[in-house]
């Protein structure tokens, strides 16, 4: 008799998507229960440890996204053929989690200067030439234009832009 699975998490990928992938990859049915940030406030006290995600297996609860994903992977034969293989699989999962932690930190970073990445600078850079020739080029792309203005006004960059020689390219 197949156990009934219910996975409870925000309506985001974040720390829930790996588990959802495991269910789908194994073609196992589960209730993909998603809640909003507003609903979280009333849901939180009902969760066993006040955390999400939570997995319910025939009503028994399990918290911690890594433990959940690994449990299901083992149940569904996606965890490696023996304990050593499990270790091999596991170490890459940990590496991915480390990267996710960094992405989450970036996502929630409020300090603009800390949040800045080379991606922002690359976007600033590629539009420099079109804007030089067609200053109203970005008017029909308000979000991009706002991003450009925000990055270009960061102190270090603004000072440099003010002083540099103007060139065609």
């Amino acid at each position, binding site marked *: 008799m197949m156990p009934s699975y219910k996975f409870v998490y925000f309506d985001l990928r974040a720390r829930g998507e790996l588990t959802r992938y495991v269910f789908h990859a194994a073609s196992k049915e589960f209730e993909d229960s998603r809640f909003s940030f507003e609903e979280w406030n009333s849901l939180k006290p009902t969760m*066993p440890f*006040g955390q999400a995600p939570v997995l319910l297996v025939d009503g028994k609860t399990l918290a911690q996204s*890594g*433990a959940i994903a*690994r*449990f299901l992977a083992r149940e569904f034969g996606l965890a490696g053929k023996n304990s*050593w293989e*499990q270790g*091999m699989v*596991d170490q890459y999962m940990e590496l991915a989690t480390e990267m996710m932690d960094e992405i989450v930190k970036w996502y929630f970073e409020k300090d603009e200067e800390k949040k800045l990445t080379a991606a922002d600078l690359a976007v600033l850079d590629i539009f420099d030439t079109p804007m030089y020739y067609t200053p109203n080029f970005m008017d029909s792309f308000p979000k991009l234009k706002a991003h450009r203005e925000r990055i270009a006004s960061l102190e270090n960059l603004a000072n440099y832009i003010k002083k540099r020689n103007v060139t065609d390219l």
Partner: protein
Amino acid sequence: MNGSVKESSSTKYRLIYFDVRGRGEIPRLLFHAAKVDFTDDRVDSEEKWYNSLKAKMPQKVLPVLEVDGKQLSQSLTICRYLAREFGLCGKTNWEQAQVEQVVDTMDDLRAEVAKWIYEKDTVKKDEIASNLRSEIYPKFFGILETILRENEENNNRSGYFVGDHLTLADLSVFETFTFPLSIHPDIFDDHLELQEHRQRIMTDKHLAEYIKNRPERPV
């Protein structure tokens, strides 16, 4: 090396880590709890680490576990692997998940405490310490006590976190609170069950000697 070999195993284990407790101590506790021989390779020279060892490590970090020469990275992966090998990870897949639930929860606590350790600004450091006491520790006490009580109710009455015997879960709780208790010695005062649990680990017949005599390190 440390204690006698429990089973006639020819597996050669080597744990490579810095000469601190940090992310190496729970694996060390696992070896001792299981009475399995291993080489406790403590890297105490920064020069040796940066100039020769680091480049040879698969993810350029420690700890690394070597099992008959094959290398495994990631401290939690190492903990879980050894716990499975030594039968210290629960008896069923579900119990294993429950053990991992505790271990991952303790890793969350470790990350919070690490913020205090790495903060250099003394004002911010005090704020973090204050937050640990008022928000963070209570949150984790609540989770741990819930788990202990539920395990009690399931007629185990063992005083362990999962099932009726010592598992990786117990070792991770024990070790994760070692540093916090060293800076905040009173935090268990109102948490009798956690005090008793800590005592249970410290007096465990396989662990007592090691815990009493292990090298004293600040972290």
